[in-house]
């Protein structure tokens, strides 16, 4: 198991995990954007693998995926982006986040070693709960990659037991019933479910969905070890007209969230 994920949650601060869709707004800009996120204060990077039918995503990430696919981005090219990123950053963990079919087409046994060689640390497949994909999860383990699973507000205690025993790296808590980017966040409601997760695992807990600025990140970070910011960042990048502008937007946005997280008011 890669130690990078564990270290990212062990830096004495809330782990900030920005999400960007690989290849959006332009495939040639993604690696620079990733470095800029780290410069801005990211601890862990979530790289979205574009899929044509992203059932759990709202319009911002759907459109980012469509644009990336139109520009020819594939799982293969996403791994190339990670390799390139690793030439200048050996420490920041990268999680790939996406859907099952591109991984299945790449090859369930071929993908994990290729991803590990590229420098990927873990995989979160939104449409693959722990009940499914046994062969893939085994191959990920063999390759030293973490299988990261979601826990939702609807997850029962019985399922939570099962997910926590299968989980590696960290547990990703979906902060509300809905799709990415929706405006439904109630940070106080995280206290109870996060406590239920902590009763069952010592893995760190990160929350995502609906966190869109420094204030909401800080509110969520009061309950969790990490926060994921996706649509708000992807939306800002989509409007960038040049590589420099995208890089600046990535760095500045993450820096502003970092500042809010570290200035916890105490």
């Amino acid at each position: 198991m890669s130690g990078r994920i564990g270290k990212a949650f062990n830096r004495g601060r809330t782990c900030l995990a920005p999400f960007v869709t690989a290849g959006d707004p332009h495939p040639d800009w993604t690696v620079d954007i990733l470095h800029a996120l780290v410069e801005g204060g990211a601890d862990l990077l979530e790289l979205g693998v574009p899929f044509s039918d992203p059932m759990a995503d709202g319009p911002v990430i759907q459109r980012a995926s469509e644009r990336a696919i139109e520009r020819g981005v594939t799982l293969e090219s996403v791994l190339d982006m990670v390799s390139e990123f690793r030439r200048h950053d050996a420490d920041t963990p990268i999680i790939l986040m996406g859907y099952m079919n591109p991984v299945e087409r790449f090859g369930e046994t071929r993908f994990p070693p290729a991803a590990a060689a590229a420098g990927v640390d873990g995989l979160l497949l939104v449409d693959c709960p722990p009940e499914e994909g046994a062969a893939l999860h085994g191959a990920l383990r063999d390759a030293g990659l973490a299988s990261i699973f979601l826990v939702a507000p609807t997850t029962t205690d019985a399922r939570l037991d099962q997910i926590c025993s299968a989980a590696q790296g960290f547990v990703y808590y979906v902060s509300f019933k809905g799709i990415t980017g929706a405006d439904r966040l109630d940070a106080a409601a995280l206290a109870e479910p996060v406590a239920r997760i902590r009763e069952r695992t010592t893995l760190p807990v990160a929350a995502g969905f609906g966190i869109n600025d420094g204030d909401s990140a800080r509110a969520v970070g009061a309950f969790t070890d990490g926060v994921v910011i996706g649509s708000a960042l992807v939306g800002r990048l989509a409007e960038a007209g040049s590589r420099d502008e995208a890089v600046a937007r990535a760095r500045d946005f993450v820096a502003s969230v970092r500042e809010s997280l570290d200035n916890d008011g105490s």
Partner: protein
Amino acid sequence: MNPQATTPSEAPDPTGHFGEFGGSYVSETLMHALEELREAWGRWRQDPEFMARLDRDLAHYVGRPSPIYHAERLTARCGGARILLKREDLNHTGAHKINNTVGQGLLAKHMGKPRVIAETGAGQHGVATATVAARLDQDCVVYMGETDIHRQAINVFRMRLMGAEVRSVSSGSRTLKDALNEAMRDWVTNVDDTFYVIGTVAGPHPYPVMVRDFNAVVGREARAQMLAQHEALPDALVACVGGGSNAMGLFHPFIGDEDVAMVGVEAAGRGLATGEHAASLCAGKPGVLHGCRTYLLDDNAGQITHTHSVSAGLDYPGVGPEHAWLKDSGRAQYVAVTDDEALDATRALSRLEGILPALESAHAVAYGLKLASQMRPDQSVLINLSGRGDKDVQTLAEIEGLSL
């Protein structure tokens, strides 16, 4: 996994797998809702009052049983096996789809869900859902691709007349698959009070089983009618396959009858070689889409490809997992017919028998005619005439260069 390892009576396993196909590939938020649904269906299907109510609705509201009609002039023209039509087109709302929505609507009522949502391609499932929701006083939202809204305008208006809200989906290919994505997003967001009425034998477990069970009334009736009227089972069953609910409903009660051949007919669109088709079983590969592992049409990177069929109801890049499993086990055979062949069959059935089939069902008719012509006169082919073609009149006129 060896598809022979599971016999039909054992399929699917308790987690909804038909061999390597099926399962529940959905985001965590929906897993509990699926568990609830499995429990509810498991319970109510054993409840004599629930099942009696369902039977009454099928008889008095849907108009079952639907007849089996001997198409004598078509038979004469083919010069082979007797051609028999299972007349699902005579059901209320004009297709087999209502067999399923009557059942799921009733289940939603019993589960205390006041709101139902559905996706639709040709609009037949949307109409069938809106119809049942009106009668059961449920709020109803139907998701439909922008492209389909244009080519099935009459069905859109029918849904609105029955009080449903039709929401246009403009993402992706703007057809059925995108409507399904959007319905899933709605369900994730409103999972507490909403029942998702899936219209075909695809999606996560238990939908493939539940939708099959509701449509299996077609096959049970057909089997009994064949024995009563023709004193023999048919030699072959033929049904069109998009997601595959009408075919699964007809096939399932015959799976143990090994002498009865089963043929599913997919949409070859402009021809399989052109890549513009919707034949996931004939030309696709196993993968994961919309909650289940099944045959689907995608590119080398695993992106789902845009499909084409003259028939909106077959214009879908996946297929029910039980069909995938029947294909690999060899119990059923899957073929594809082109838009042009389906249109020829539409004209033939209209002119020779006075029956205008839905363009979806016309695919089954087209292959059924071919098959019958290669068989002996003492044999019979039972074609599922899954829907009527009133909804397609506009499309047919446009193809002939007419505006109505």
